């Protein structure tokens, strides 16, 4: 699990993130929402160690993130970036297999995990194909399978960070992806996901951090955070908030 206290990140001369405190707890999915430029990707960058904090701390299992040796950190923390620039013709199962590199579990076990991860990302049928021959959405699912494989089976002690994992996916796969992520959390993993779709966040997240201009606007359950007033203030959007007829979570409708 990841604990963040009073995080401040400065890039160039601009304070991109300020005063953010949160913890990504085991078994929970934490969604991060906000308009473009609100600092969501910066937050992710700081949480995975890509960006250094000007002030504040990031602790992974109560140890500062920077103190973790690379391999051990990779066994506990995985990051799915927004886009991938892989330009070589690996087979899909080889790409997913790279998720097992931090571990020393042996070929047989790795192959089982790769298969299971591909299954969870609904990409098992792509296993033998060349990565370069896939569409954007298919590639995204392959990388999801890779990070799932990295933390498989997703028990307590594993943390998963995802940066807009549904951006290139069709509606069905948006849901299957988040269901896989949810499944991971249900088995005990801690998950933080950046989303831009308010309804997906409402359905799959236990808590939501709403960012505005680098500062936390709200940090609570979806019901509490996704209110018309807050959404108008942060996104500038007039919305109606209703309850989902079958599931009961907030349903945001633009007016």
């Amino acid at each position, binding site marked *: 699990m990841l604990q963040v206290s009073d995080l401040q990140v400065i890039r160039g001369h601009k304070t991109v993130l300020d005063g953010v405190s949160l913890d990504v707890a085991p078994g929970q999915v934490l969604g991060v929402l906000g308009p473009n430029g609100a600092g969501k990707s910066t937050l992710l960058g700081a949480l995975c160690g890509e960006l250094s904090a000007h002030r504040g701390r990031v602790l992974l299992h109560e140890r500062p993130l920077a103190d973790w040796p690379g391999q051990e950190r990779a066994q506990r923390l995985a990051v799915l970036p927004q886009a*991938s620039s892989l330009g070589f013709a690996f087979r899909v199962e080889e790409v997913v297999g790279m998720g097992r590199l931090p571990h020393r579990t042996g070929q047989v076990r790795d192959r089982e995990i790769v298969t299971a991860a591909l299954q969870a990302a609904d990409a098992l049928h792509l296993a033998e194909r060349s990565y370069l021959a896939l569409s954007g959405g298919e590639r995204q699912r392959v990388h999801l399978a890779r990070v799932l494989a990295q933390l498989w089976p997703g028990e307590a002690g594993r943390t998963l960070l995802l940066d807009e994992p549904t951006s290139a996916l069709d509606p069905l796969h948006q849901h299957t992806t988040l269901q896989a992520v949810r499944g991971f959390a249900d088995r005990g993993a801690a998950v933080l996901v950046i989303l831009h779709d308010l309804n997906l966040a409402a359905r799959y997240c236990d808590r939501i951090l709403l960012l505005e201009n680098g500062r936390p606007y709200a940090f609570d359950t979806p019901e509490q955070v996704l209110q018309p007033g807050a959404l108008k203030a942060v996104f500038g959007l007039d919305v109606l908030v209703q309850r989902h007829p079958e599931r009961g979570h907030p349903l945001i409708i633009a007016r």
Partner: protein
Amino acid sequence: MTRLVSPRTLFIALGLLCLLAVWLSLALGPVSLPLIDTLRVGLRLLGLPVNGDGLEQAELILGQIRLPRTLLGLAVGAVLALAGVAMQGLFRNPLADPGLVGVSSGAALGAAIAIVGSTWVGGVPEVFAPYLLSLCAFLGGLGVTALVYRLGSKEGQTSVATMLLAGIALTALASSAVGLFTYLADDATLRTLTFWNLGSLNGASYQRLWPLVLVATGVALWLPRRAEALNALLLGESEARHLGFEVEKLKRELVFCTALGVGAAVAAAGLIGFIGLVVPHLVRLLAGPDHRVLLPASLLAGASLLLFADLIARLALAPAELPIGIVTAFIGAPFFLYLLLRGRA
């Protein structure tokens, strides 16, 4: 998608190819030696007690001329191919080439300084001359690469894109400097410089061979150990970091290996192009981009290819000799065009 060949088949085939190349390189040449003599000398060189009557010429040709040349070809071909893999991994681009970090142009500049400079100084004692040339070429290659690396790094972070641009700029600068030396050189020196630029395995001897063999062995043992890290690097620098690899250290190692290996190869044999570009490409076409297969396979393929090219260089115009850089260019360039066209189709 099925790979054209499985790794096992590939290694067996390449191993056999390499053995064939070595054999042909030892058995064929402008001097035609009867097969039985070649075999007898071979056994004697291995230390077996075989009768040596009438074998003096064969022993000289094989032991002093062809064998060191074959070893040189193996080492140069292997290290150039490995450096090609390393650079294509570093720049995450299959069109990358060891020359991108400036090592080739730096070595050419070092050689130009040695060749032209020694005529200015009024000649160098002949015993030093070949060592001086090799040393200057090696230092030139290392120097320019170090500069490219420094320009591309800031606060411990190396930007590959910046390094690429720095490499282009410094290569242009080094080439202009070589041009200046070319202008200032007299006719005879100019010819020497030109021939050096074309590359040759001519005049290989054991004394000049061992530094390169040491370096090549080092690179050949070191790089395959970083195969998994190179695979991860292809995903992207952040992704590789998230998988637990020390990416900055890896980039530094790749640049260093390339500079050292290519610098030593160029110092020993002049500029030989296309091996670093074409060999990894070819192996990838056959067996995919996994570095655990790519690295050892490229080593074997590069060594074999260079030995075959040298055969052509030695035999095509016998008793004269073609510079080997011409042969590799003639083979490499059309092949490369073919790859490009095929990729577009």
